[in-house]
């Protein structure tokens, strides 16, 4: 006997992500899912964002890594709460891991929750976490062809950061080629060019973000 099923394989995750989304809305928390390849500068960008906004915005960070808690410790040194999730081999965070991490966070005391996904340009794109926006970071040393090679994640971005612009001179990275690659996939998302460690361009990004966080808490 044939049984028609037609069920989305990721439905279980969608359900959990929807629960998260409702909870975040009820608590007026703005949530960013930060996605990028390993070493693109996710933690550095989060640190720069924290330093720029922490006097005015209550921030907490969820760090997703396959192993270790070094990233969460770095964030804590900057004076905001950070929870480390170790995925134990999984190449992405999912709605359930976020739910577990939320058990130790007081959402009433948070305006902005930044989630650093596992360094990977493929898998995190498939798993909804219940976030308010997706931030994709690409960095100069990775080359300007990343949008061509990993199109799915670039279509999903609500904002893009091109990080490590201090290294433009040392490489043959073409800003035009990168921007054209992005625009073919994603006509609207703003692109912020920054150096997370040196500070260039960070303010334009954090001001844009601040407006969104303020809008969410109204």
């Amino acid at each position: 006997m044939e049984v028609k099923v037609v069920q989305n394989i990721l439905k279980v995750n969608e359900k959990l992500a929807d629960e998260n989304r409702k909870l975040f809305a009820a608590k007026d928390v703005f949530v960013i899912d930060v996605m990028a390849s390993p070493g693109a500068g996710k933690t550095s960008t989060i640190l720069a964002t924290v330093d720029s906004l922490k006097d005015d915005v209550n921030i907490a960070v969820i760090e997703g890594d396959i192993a270790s808690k070094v990233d969460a410790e770095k964030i804590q040194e900057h004076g905001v709460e950070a929870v480390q999730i170790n995925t134990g081999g999984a190449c992405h965070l999912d709605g359930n891991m976020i739910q577990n991490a939320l058990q130790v966070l007081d959402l009433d005391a948070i305006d902005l929750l930044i989630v650093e996904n596992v360094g990977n340009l493929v898998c995190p794109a498939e798993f909804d976490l219940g976030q308010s926006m997706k931030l994709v970071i690409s960095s100069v040393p990775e080359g300007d062809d990343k949008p061509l090679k990993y199109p799915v994640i670039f279509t999903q971005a609500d904002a893009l950061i091109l990080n490590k612009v201090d290294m433009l001179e040392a490489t043959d990275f073409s800003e035009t080629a990168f921007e054209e690659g992005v625009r073919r996939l994603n006509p609207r998302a703003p692109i912020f060019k920054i150096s997370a460690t040196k500070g260039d361009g960070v303010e334009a990004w954090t001001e844009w973000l601040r407006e969104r966080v303020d809008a969410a808490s109204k």
Partner: protein
Amino acid sequence: MHEMSVTQNVMEIVLQQAKEAGATRVKSVKLRFGTLTSIVPDCVAFYFEQMTPGTLAEGAKLDVEMVPLRLKCGQCGEEFEGQDELDVTCPKCGNPFTETLSGREMEVASIDVDT
């Protein structure tokens, strides 16, 4: 890719559906994956073989249908097939912005069971 978590979810759906249908055995499972999902069917088949022993789906055959990428032009409305990539301009009017119609599917389509 995350074939392992995908296969775990497949197992959950299959066993749940088999139970609801009062099945004694699952003979085959049909999956549909869009070409954009970057799922490797052989890899899912491998995990499936690891996970089925001792369940109703032990020995079940796995069929995977790949769903091609279809796109629609945001300007002139032309619908066309893409080449596993989203970076395509409309063949009719040259507009670079396209909408994805299919190619992102990840679903259990049906199961065949003995009752």
